[in-house]
């Protein structure tokens, strides 16, 4: 039922019996943007896709498999959601990588690797830098770098530039998009920034008011 280049597909999806989504297709290896007014369930959609929320109706297919038949832990390892609320441990950048990797049951990556991912996110601090002394935007980028380093198959960014100034936001998204293109990672971005959407969007999904209570 899925076309070859579709990685996610939804059918009659509803959440909380309040939000009804039109059928959505996320295209594999492309940059997919989800746009629309506030309160239309964009963030909830991402959480439905990674199975941290359950729909009140309808189905979600990931690579043609209904996600209800999948182990949600495996799904989340492949489909990584970088939410708006950033969490970092009150430690150095290096220690943050180590702790997150430890939670996933993995050894921490090499310093060189950490620096590579930080560079993609436009962070040039030493790995010993304490994360508690960083600005909101810096923390957001370190958080992004850590998630990126796990090399998921799909990366979902919820308002990735909300805490960044315009130039910084553009650079980071450009780098992340380049990185994902080179590594065949599908990107899904929620953004209110028209400029960003127009510059990078290859598949733009508009979730509109008409999607509510239809």
């Amino acid at each position, binding site marked *: 039922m899925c076309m070859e280049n579709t990685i996610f597909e939804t059918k009659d999806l509803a959440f909380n019996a309040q939000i009804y989504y039109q059928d959505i297709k996320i295209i594999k290896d492309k940059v997919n943007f989800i746009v629309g007014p506030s309160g239309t369930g964009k963030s909830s959609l991402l959480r439905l896709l*990674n*199975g*941290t*929320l*359950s729909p009140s109706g309808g189905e979600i297919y990931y690579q043609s498999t209904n996600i209800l038949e999948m182990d*949600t*832990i*495996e*799904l*989340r*390892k492949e489909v*990584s*959601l*970088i*939410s708006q*609320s*950033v*969490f970092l441990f009150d430690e150095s950048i290096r220690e943050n990588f180590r702790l*997150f990797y430890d*939670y*996933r049951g993995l050894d921490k990556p090499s310093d060189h690797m950490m620096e590579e991912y930080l560079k993609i996110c436009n962070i040039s601090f030493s790995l010993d830098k304490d994360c508690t002394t960083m600005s909101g935007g810096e923390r957001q980028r370190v*958080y992004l770098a850590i*998630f990126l380093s*796990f090399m998921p198959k799909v990366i979902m960014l919820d308002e990735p530039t909300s805490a960044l100034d315009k130039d910084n936001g553009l650079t980071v998204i450009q780098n992340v998009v380049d990185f994902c293109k080179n590594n065949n990672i599908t990107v899904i971005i929620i953004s209110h920034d028209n400029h960003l959407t127009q510059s990078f969007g290859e598949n733009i999904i508009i979730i509109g008011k008409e999607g509510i209570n239809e």
Partner: protein
Amino acid sequence: MNSIIKLDIIHFSLIYLLLLIILAIMKKSKINQTKLLLLASFRMTIQLILAGLILTYIFDNPHPAFVVIYLLGMIAFSVHRVLSKNKDINKNFKLAITFSLAFSGVFILGYFVMVVVGESFFSPQYTIPLAGMIIGNSMTGATLGMKTFTEDIKNQRNKIEALLNLGVTPKKILLPFVNNALETALLPTMNNMLGMGIISLPGMMTGQILSGTEPTTAIMYQIAIMIAICTAVCLTVFCSLTFGYKTLYNSRNQIKL
């Protein structure tokens, strides 16, 4: 050893005069809690008089049913106290706390009375006062443990969400919270044990010595009750949280706080 001097009601009531000191200090320091002090003193008096009457009756007419009813009442009251301070948790979590408190309390109490003292479990003279100490302390431990657990989880929602999105299992995310709460709940009891005998003679021992028991016997009882309390607190909090935290997530690995 002399047996205890019985207090007559006139002399006994003189102790209430000490409350005037507290009232005077409160007034001077503008502490607006005089009502609470009077209410607390009044309630304590009434509750203890009732307990005294009931215990006198039970001791005069010992019957297993009385012991069971008294125990059930204590458990129900302590469960109520713990749950009233943790209203926001789900129904199954509450069930886990109820069973953990009841099971741990009765198990440790039974071991103490039947194995260590060598008395019948239905002997009111031993079972009822020891139950009060064991279950009362378990209640305090469970309240502290649950408070720590729920507050930590509330304050660290971001952490839980981030780890969940990264594909970490709810078990791995929540266990550190369980362990931390257990540690916090155990610390007061252990600290209490550290200072025991140096800073103060503990309540049960004081009571036994006052009523004419040999200090060596009183000491053994005190040591036994402290270890029993520590174990009961540990078991209650461990079981409550170990069974309880599993009610916070489902088979889809979604955490509901």
